[in-house]
């Protein structure tokens, strides 16, 4: 068996429907296809570049916004931690002062 020849025989070109061209033309005349030349020379290329530029601009803007938000969140966390330390220090100081103030009163009462 010659496999190549069998495949050529099996996959011969077949006759397309005779009205295929007419049906395609009817669809064209119904406005289903606008030729590329009607869109203006190079317009698709220009639109492609504009779309790419817009996507890049949006991506850059998004990245900048994300970076700013991250920085703000980090700054907020840092300030919050410093405030907690300050409150802790203040609390400890007040406790020591109160302790010292209460000592003379106890000794004079004896």
């Amino acid at each position, binding site marked *: 068996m010659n496999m190549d020849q069998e495949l050529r025989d099996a996959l011969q070109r077949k006759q397309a429907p005779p009205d*295929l061209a007419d049906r395609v*033309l009817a669809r064209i005349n119904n406005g289903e296809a606008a030729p590329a030349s009607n869109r203006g020379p190079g317009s698709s290329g220009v639109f492609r570049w504009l779309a790419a530029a817009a996507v890049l601009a949006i991506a850059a803007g998004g990245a900048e916004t994300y970076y700013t938000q991250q920085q703000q969140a980090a700054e907020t966390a840092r300030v919050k931690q410093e405030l907690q330390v300050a409150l802790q220090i203040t609390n400890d100081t007040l406790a020591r002062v109160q302790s010292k103030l209460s000592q003379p009163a106890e000794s004079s009462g004896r």
Partner: protein
Amino acid sequence: MVTAAPFGRTDTAALPARPVAVAAPSPHCAAAQDVSSPDLLTLAKAGDQAAFAALIRRHQNMVFSVALHMLRSRPAAEDLAQEVFLELYRHLSRLESDAHVVSWLRRVASHRCIDEIRRRNHRQEFATDTLPEPGHSPQTRDVFGAERLQAMVAELPEKARMVVVLRYQEEMEPTEIASALSMPINTVKSHLRRSIAALRESLMSRGRV
């Protein structure tokens, strides 16, 4: 009635009456045999619908057959061929020669077929409307064998099937197939080798060899 166009030839019945010069034809390039093609393309690009219709008739068997061998359904192949020619109309201004038209049509038809198969999972379907009518292919020695072989080709994965159809229907070289399908040449050769082996094995298991 279905008659197969010889490989690498155009549908001469579709051509307007023009002198046809003898070129140095490539056996796999339909356009190389007819130097009047650029005139037809130029007319079509200028908006001549009759010229565009003639352009369709020249290439419709090729596009329709690729779709039919891939999809195994005449209605689906007709729809796909129409879509391909509508897309051709949209892209006419970018095409420079009939050879360019042929390679563009093959590429677009191939990709659309693969997309269609993936979308419909067409491998599961075997439409009965693809069965050849008696006398369709006078060159086919064994109609039932050819039909069985077509069905076996239709069971190949879509990319392998496309490679086989382009190789044996369109007589394209592996380098041309690689270019049309945007596929490495070694992948094309691998698809061909494996597909032939699988088809041969399947035929042997059915007692054909």
